């Protein structure tokens, strides 16, 4: 695949000018997943832009996320403790996913399926922690989508909407991973090859990617 590295800018013109396909050697499913992720990027960015707008326009104080999301550990409040753990878990799951892709292409379907299951479990635990975080916010801090005791009501609405939408993506990803892992394990892709693991991986890494932005813009602003 690396034949024309010296003349990359020409290679790109050649690719767009070619017949049959623009993305040489890219399977249909993978091309389609990339384009879907591009569309999904627009969805998440619109959500985040809406959040930015309501946050910048509100004349009420915005609750301080480091405090709101602090957890008590060994008797001292540690800011964003749970968020840090969740971030760590999601990054780790991205690592196991990447290894699953690798194993798939080596046609070691046992390890590939196992790594995917681990990824799914990490994802599920992320969703579990999110549920815990939501519960704490609702029960202990009194945050509701329509208001909260600490300031701008948009704090709760944007938080629940954006993390909720992200959480739905993670949950869908867990199901998707489980299904593909099961099929990999059963040897369903022996003939057609293991692109599917990479495609599933693209989706999963994207979910991680979105979290990077949520982490920076929601929790650290």
């Amino acid at each position, binding site marked *: 695949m690396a034949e024309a590295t010296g003349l990359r800018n020409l290679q*790109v013109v050649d690719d767009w000018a070619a017949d049959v396909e623009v993305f040489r050697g890219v399977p249909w499913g993978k091309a389609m997943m990339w384009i879907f992720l591009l569309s999904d990027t627009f969805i998440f960015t619109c959500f985040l832009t809406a959040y930015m*707008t309501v946050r910048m326009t509100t*004349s009420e104080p915005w609750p301080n996320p480091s405090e709101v999301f602090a957890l008590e550990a060994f008797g001292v409040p540690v800011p964003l403790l749970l968020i840090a753990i969740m971030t760590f878990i999601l990054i780790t799951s991205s690592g196991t996913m990447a290894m699953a892709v690798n194993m798939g292409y080596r046609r070691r379907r046992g390890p590939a399926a196992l790594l995917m299951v681990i990824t799914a479990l990490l994802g599920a635990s992320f969703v579990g922690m999110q549920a815990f975080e939501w519960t704490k916010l609702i029960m202990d801090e009194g945050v509701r989508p329509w208001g909260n005791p600490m300031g701008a009501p948009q704090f709760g609405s944007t938080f629940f909407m954006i993390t909720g939408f992200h959480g739905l993506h993670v949950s869908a990803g867990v199901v998707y991973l489980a299904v593909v892992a099961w099929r990999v394990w059963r040897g369903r892709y022996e003939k057609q090859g293991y*692109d599917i693991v990479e495609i599933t991986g693209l989706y999963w890494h994207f979910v991680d990617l979105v979290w990077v932005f949520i982490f920076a813009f929601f929790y650290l602003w």
Partner: protein
Amino acid sequence: MAADTGQQHPISVYFWIWTLLFVFSAASYTVDYIGFQGYMRWTLIIIFMMLKAGFIVAIFMHMRWERVALITAILVPPGALLVLVALMAMESDYTWATRILYFGEDPAPVPLPPPSH
């Protein structure tokens, strides 16, 4: 479709990136923990964020090894979003200013004290 020719790279690369992502996350967390404010805070947070995002896309999603045709097709369109974000930031400032002007609410939301540890 023929397999075994797809994206295959040494596992060690993934371990490296995993470590880096961990380090950058820890770094941005530290920015908050120390309580940097203003430009310092935002420069650091955005740099770490972009580094993390870049590594995830480039290495985990294998963008680095894709052909330029795919890279451009995916990375160019989000430029439209940058226009949206930039203009909405301007718009928000303006809305905020008019709110203060016409409704005369407290112009400076009381800055919360940095978290005390």
